[in-house]
């Protein structure tokens, strides 16, 4: 069996190993520096790109704002319209209509009935007092009240007073509450 003989001296072998280590260390360091340089360049490029985008966006926003300011008159009208329309719509929603109440008062006017006092409160409730000259008048007045009751527009309908008057007629007091 043949035996290999290393002709390179031990000293030379050491030197060679050292050279290899040096080379690989150098390569690693340069590699790291290279990666850093690429990374730094990339960071600068991204930073530059973002700065430019920011500037151009700022210019764009300024141009748009100028355009909006040029139409400020239209905007002020739109703001007034939106502000007023909300007030008007809530006002109309809560406004009490007295037309129906007036119609009901008209309907209560039966022959022989004399209206002496009438009050309409802010909710549309009614307080009526008057007199009827006969029992027929009283009956037809009550019929009209029943017609109102049937419509269910009032939560409560009371006769606080129904009595005979000295003249021979009937005194009536009626309350219709909303």
């Amino acid at each position, binding site marked *: 069996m043949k035996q290999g003989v290393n002709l390179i001296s031990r000293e030379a072998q*050491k030197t060679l190993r050292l050279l290899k280590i*040096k080379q690989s*260390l*150098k390569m690693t*360091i*340069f590699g*790291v*520096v290279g990666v*850093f340089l690429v*990374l*730094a360049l990339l*960071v*600068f490029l*991204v*930073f530059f790109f*973002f*700065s430019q*985008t*920011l500037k151009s*966006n*700022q210019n764009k*926003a300024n141009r*748009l704002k100028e*355009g*909006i300011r040029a*139409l400020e008159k*239209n*905007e002020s*009208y*739109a*703001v*007034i*319209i*939106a*502000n*007023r*329309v*909300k*007030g*008007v*719509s*809530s*006002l109309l929603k*809560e406004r009490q*209509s*007295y*037309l129906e109440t*007036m119609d009901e*008062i*008209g309907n209560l*006017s039966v022959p022989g009935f*004399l*209206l*002496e*006092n*009438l*009050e*309409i409160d*802010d909710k549309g409730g009614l307080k009526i007092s*008057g007199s009827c000259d006969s029992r027929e008048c009283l009956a037809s007045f009550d019929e009209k009240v029943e017609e109102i009751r049937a419509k269910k527009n009032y939560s409560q309908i009371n006769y606080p007073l129904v009595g005979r008057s000295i003249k021979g007629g009937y005194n009536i007091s009626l309350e219709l509450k909303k």
Partner: protein
Amino acid sequence: MTQEQLKELLRELAWPLAAAGLAVVVTLIFLFPKIGQILSLRTEISEQNKEIKQLQQKLADLNTLSEPELFESSSLLEEALPGEADLFKNMIIVRRVFEENGVFLDSFRLLGGLASGPAQGSDQVAGLSALRIEVAFSAPFESFRQMIKSMEKILPLTTVKRIKFGSLEATESASLFGLSGKVEVINFFSPLPKTLGKVEQPLPKITNQEQKLIEELKLYTRYQAGVSVEEPVSSPSAVGRDNPFSI
């Protein structure tokens, strides 16, 4: 490895090591803050993009609006709900409506001064300020009824409250003919907005229902210092977009 060899190795690696050290130092003091700046720039740009989108939308909305139409609507609404109380003007309008319907105005009295600010008590509606006038009147029942009907369809918007009949004169045919009493007439006002707000704020929009309301108001009788300035128009002619603010 001998000491001499080690020295030689370090001498040869001095420059590369210095470069690597410099890279680390520069990274620490320069590159990291730059990366932080990039991140904040990114956030800023995304906010800017959002703002630009809003501005573009607002500009597009504003461009579609017709100035004459807006002027007409805002004038109408300001007539419906004025920015300031005007007792003189309101009195003339009330007298005019009474006269037009055959109701005789005996006297009037201002109630509670000029209320302002948010709603207080039951006389103010929907946070609006009220100008309350008590009017003494005399009229036939039908005229009074007609006056109430007219009051519900006039600009500025008016409310009638607390009707109290003091004396009622009956006739042979119907006992409700002659009425006299007091009625409370309320006009509303609300201060106009003073500023437009930030330019980035979106354009205020009104709903279709509110647009319908504006169309309805066009049918109301408009008064200026007591003189009816415009007869109700049966069918308002639409110009431009149907509803410039509709959502």
